[in-house]
């Protein structure tokens, strides 16, 4: 087998690096993380014309090897560490034809590390349109490299690039600039200290050392020491030196006729960044995204939900009854189903976000919103994640990666869970229907107003806590806000597709593992118990039913069901005068009643079991804690299970109230019929209802969000802060509300 070569794709953001990666590797790619940090590591395999295989790494986009963010640090670290298993045999620097000058800056740095370096000039199809004339042969000589002109849009030049990669050993590894020029004395000292080391490499390691623990072992002790100010001075000189080299290389090889170049961009910018129209347009785009997430995605979501309950049912009826089948059907399948229903929302969200990003529009939103967000410790780059949070906090937290300022990013991550995510919706809807009068004021229904208030409350709380956090968090905030405003481009649907696929996959697998584990634990706690009551539930309940009959609720439910059944028969054209017909009806009613009674008995046993399961005891255990909020132990359990995911609330109450199906109307009626312990007032009244809604509005009840926050902040500290702080706050607010209203 041929030895495969390692190729690193390096380039500025917005140069189409990822498109090139996609075209080189196709779907044969995998996304992982760099060890210990959350920067995505993408790699794939590319078959070369000479039948060798190239291992391609798509490094994070960076403007320079002087690092500003986590993403950029990865690039510098990898290129410095020759012992790293991923250290490239070949660096492919991706540039785009319109920003060639700036893009070449990174090229000179990479090449000065003496790594064989290839240059890709992407978006070559724009050369005539933008009035650019480019002399490739002459530029190759000036830069001492090989150039591949590529257009990912047209799909041209990829084969040529592959050929160049295959013949990489013909490339020169000579440097572009003599770095010692920036401080001859200092560099001669460096050379004395480490005579064999490449000076630029050494310099880069020294310059980055304050912020970067390089893994390679350069003994710093023997080196002359620079003050911070001197270091910046030298970096500045280096920048000037590199641009001198670039300007010289481009002088005769790359000419732009600016009259042709202007035009479209200026026109679009006039609209998109306009002081008035810019905001209106942005608002309209937001509305469309909300529409997609709340309305359009409900069809595929419902479909997925139905499929999973079918699978669960199928397993129950086709597998031998027993503990394993229960675990599979109720724990595992419903757990996975709980994740899968979010796929459409997440896919839609990432579809829009990547569409807006690919087109270049997102940078304009950042520009428009930055000033408005700043008083709250947020940045223009926080807007998109906060919007995403109304669908689901998980992708929203992932979307904060574009914020290079760590403090602003952290605040954004911490406040996202306050925005009203879609999992709160079922809880709100059922509680509103129960406790808010079905009345209206000035044509506005109280119920709709309440829902709207809850949304505003969530957003307001996010902004308010951002402001508080901004005061509290003491962090060095050296990173300046510099946002590139890339040119507008028609998004490549293929790229958008890849992004949607990849993000959705990473959501399902990443968050899925945790949801799944938790679902299994909850199921276990709910279906196992240590007490005699639990083990003998069947006998106890059967005996009780024999003595006292079914509970009033079950009786009532059966009666209503039969009445409805008879009414339907009544209207159907059967010949009821026939004796045989009458008997048939009586028979069928009898059978039906028996079945219903059987069912009710099973439900009551299940309910009794739950009450005496580990979870039931836990519920009883926390009852003193939730009582001041106006909840009984059953609501307590529902709240407790909701810490896995909020939408579990309704389902848990359904199980507890032994209502067989998840039809909300039935659960609602059952809930409406519950009385508090005095037996006089309904359990779900205005006071306890509002208290519950406020609790759900503020509490951090979502395992998967916590997991994602852990992943993104790379520590348990921040998710724990969220969990404890938000939940304590929710508790206090709910307590106050109930005590005031009761």
């Amino acid at each position, binding site marked *: 087998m041929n030895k495969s070569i390692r190729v690193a794709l390096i380039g500025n953001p917005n140069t189409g690096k990822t498109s090139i990666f996609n075209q080189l590797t196709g779907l044969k790619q995998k996304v992982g993380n760099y060890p210990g940090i959350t920067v995505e590591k993408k790699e794939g395999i590319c078959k070369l014309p000479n039948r060798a295989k190239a291992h391609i790494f798509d490094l994070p986009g960076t403007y320079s090897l*002087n690092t500003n963010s986590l993403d950029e640090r990865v690039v510098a670290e990898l290129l410095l560490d020759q012992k790293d298993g991923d250290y490239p045999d070949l660096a492919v620097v991706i540039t785009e034809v319109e920003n060639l000058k700036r893009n070449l800056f990174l090229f000179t740095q990479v090449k000065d590390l003496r790594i064989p370096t290839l240059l890709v000039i992407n978006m070559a199809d724009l050369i005539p349109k933008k009035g650019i004339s480019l002399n490739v042969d002459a530029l190759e000589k000036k830069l001492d490299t090989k150039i591949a002109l590529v257009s990912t849009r047209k799909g041209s030049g990829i084969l040529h690039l592959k050929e160049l990669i295959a013949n990489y050993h013909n490339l020169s590894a000579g440097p572009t600039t003599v770095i010692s020029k920036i401080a001859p004395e200092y560099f001669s000292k460096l050379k004395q200290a480490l005579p064999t080391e490449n000076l630029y490499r050494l310099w880069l390691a020294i310059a980055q050392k304050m912020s970067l623990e390089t893994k390679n072992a350069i003994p710093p002790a023997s080196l002359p020491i620079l003050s911070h100010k001197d270091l910046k001075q030298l970096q500045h000189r280096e920048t000037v030196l590199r641009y001198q080299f670039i300007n010289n290389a481009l002088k005769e090889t790359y000419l732009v006729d600016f009259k042709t170049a202007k035009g479209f961009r200026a026109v679009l910018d006039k609209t998109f960044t306009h002081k008035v129209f810019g905001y209106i347009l942005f608002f309209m785009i937001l509305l469309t995204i909300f529409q997609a997430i709340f309305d359009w995605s409900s069809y595929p979501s419902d479909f997925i939900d139905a499929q999973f309950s079918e699978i669960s049912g199928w397993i129950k009826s086709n597998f031998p009854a027993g503990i394993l089948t229960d675990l599979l059907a109720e724990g595992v399948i419903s757990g996975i189903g709980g994740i899968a229903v979010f796929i459409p929302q997440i896919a839609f969200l990432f579809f829009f976000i990547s569409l807006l990003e690919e087109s270049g529009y997102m940078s304009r939103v950042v520009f428009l919103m930055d000033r408005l967000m700043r008083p709250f410790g947020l940045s223009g780059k926080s807007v998109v994640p906060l919007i995403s949070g109304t669908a689901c906090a998980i992708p929203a937290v992932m979307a904060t990666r574009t914020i290079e300022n760590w403090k602003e990013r952290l605040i954004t991550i911490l406040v996202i869970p306050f925005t009203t995510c879609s999992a709160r919706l079922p809880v709100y809807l059922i509680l509103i229907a129960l406790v808010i009068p079905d009345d209206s004021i000035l044509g506005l229904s109280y119920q709709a107003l309440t829902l709207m208030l809850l949304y505003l409350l969530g957003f307001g709380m996010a902004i308010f806590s951002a402001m508080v956090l901004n005061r509290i968090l003491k962090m060095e905030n050296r990173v*300046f806000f510099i946002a590139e405003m*890339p040119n507008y481009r028609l998004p490549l649907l293929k790229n958008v597709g890849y992004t949607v696929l990849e993000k959705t996959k990473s959501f399902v697998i990443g968050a899925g593992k945790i949801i799944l584990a938790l679902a299994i634990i909850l199921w276990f706690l709910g279906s196992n118990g240590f007490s005699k009551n639990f083990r003998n539930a069947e006998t106890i309940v059967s005996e009780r039913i024999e003595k006292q009959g079914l509970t009033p609720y079950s009786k009532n439910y059966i009666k209503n069901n039969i009445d409805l059944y008879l009414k339907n028969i009544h209207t159907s054209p059967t010949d009821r005068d026939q004796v045989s017909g009458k008997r048939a009806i009586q028979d069928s009613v009898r059978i039906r009643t028996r079945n219903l009674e059987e069912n009710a008995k099973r439900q009551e046993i299940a309910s009794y079991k739950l009450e005496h399961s580990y979870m039931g005891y836990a519920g009883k255990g926390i009852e003193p804690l939730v009582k001041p909020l106006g909840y009984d132990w059953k609501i307590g359990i529902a709240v407790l299970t909701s810490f896995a995911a909020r939408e579990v609330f309704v389902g848990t109450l359904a199980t507890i109230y032994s209502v067989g199906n998840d039809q909300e109307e039935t659960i609602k009626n059952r809930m409406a019929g519950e009385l508090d312990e005095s037996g006089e007032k309904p359990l779900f009244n205005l006071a306890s209802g509002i208290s519950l809604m406020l609790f759900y509005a503020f509490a951090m009840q979502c395992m998967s969000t916590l997991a994602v926050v852990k992943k993104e902040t790379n520590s348990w500290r921040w998710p724990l802060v969220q969990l404890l702080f938000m939940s304590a706050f929710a508790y206090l607010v709910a307590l106050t509300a109930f005590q005031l209203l009761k």
Partner: protein
Amino acid sequence: MATVADLKKGQKGVILDFDKTSLPIKLLEMGCLPGNSVELVQMAPLKDPLYINIDGSHIAIRHDLARQIPITVVEDHKAL
């Protein structure tokens, strides 16, 4: 002395020599070097952030950073 923050929309300037250590290195790497041209493309309400074109590089920076970049304003009659 005039700075980038003083530019009017559509106005151009040439960057002057500045204190080498005051500005973030990233800004220099984006092309903000003495002698290069700079144009104010667009500004958000309250003149912050500013959307500028430095030597072909289109970036947005906040007002506080723009105030640290000294320039001479170029009267743009020739462009007409």
